[in-house]
């Protein structure tokens, strides 16, 4: 469905999303008109969904980043729905993923410091329903975070 030109265009845009159209077209080896038409088509097809701003939680005062790996009690029929509904109501949860594997759900949690984290963990996380097991990984350093697709 995507041809080489589409991929090239997306690759350059992915590397620098703020790139103005003439510059982007030039790098991809297309005229600005053709580049714009292709991007329009990729949007219409739902391939290109948009752009989002990246926020640095550290700079916002959230120095702690913890990845919580949760196993749920799957004998409870609404385990996933109830747990996810509860997790969505915790403001400090910035990402929620569900998995096939040893881990059922992963929550990405930010906190101002250890005291704040302990408060969130005890008061909000541990009171979420149907938790069978929970493990935490604390982020020491982010080595790579561009989340680019290998186009």
């Amino acid at each position: 469905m995507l041809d080489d030109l589409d991929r090239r265009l997306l690759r350059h845009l992915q590397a620098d999303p703020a790139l103005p159209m003439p510059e982007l077209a030039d790098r991809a080896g297309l005229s600005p008109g053709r580049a714009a038409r292709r991007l329009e088509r990729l949007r219409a097809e739902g391939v290109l969904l948009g752009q989002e701003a990246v926020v640095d939680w550290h700079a916002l005062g959230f120095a702690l980043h913890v990845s919580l790996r949760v196993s749920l009690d799957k004998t409870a029929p609404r385990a996933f729905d109830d747990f996810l509904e509860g997790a969505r109501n915790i403001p400090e949860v910035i990402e929620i993923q569900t998995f096939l594997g040893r881990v059922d759900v992963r929550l990405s949690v930010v906190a101002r410091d250890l005291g704040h984290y302990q408060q969130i963990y005890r008061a909000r996380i541990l009171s979420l329903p149907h938790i069978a097991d929970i493990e935490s990984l604390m982020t020491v350093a982010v080595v790579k975070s561009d989340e680019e697709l290998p186009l």
Partner: protein
Amino acid sequence: MTDLDDIDRALLRTLRKDAEQSASQLGRKVGLSQPATWRRIRALEAAGILTGRRLVLDAEKIGFGVTVFLGVKLATKGRVSLDDFERAVTAIREVQTVEHVLGLYDYRLRVVARDLADFERVLRRRIMTLPGVGNVEANVLLSEERRPGPI
């Protein structure tokens, strides 16, 4: 940075959803003039809070049907082996994020692949051959949501 006001927060929330809006569009949403909006965005960038933009693509439509989160434990430790591992792992195109973590694993990776067979190839040929790599746990992503966060 704790001196953000409600308008700054509203700007951040809006930009995290859609970073392609012009300063005048944004200004209308938060009740500011275009120049005032522009100044605030510049200030958020200067404070290191807004760090850039990310292209949002439908990975599946581009042919990346599988995303896997890996927990990696190193077999041998020491400064040199961490550097070697990080240099090698960030060079793998299918690896989207790399985090050095504290806990059950040493690193958390996010990996994309075309399908499970392609993932097996990446795992065997690229990940398992990394310098110092030990135990690896894989969880296949089923669903994902990004939350607004505590802004």
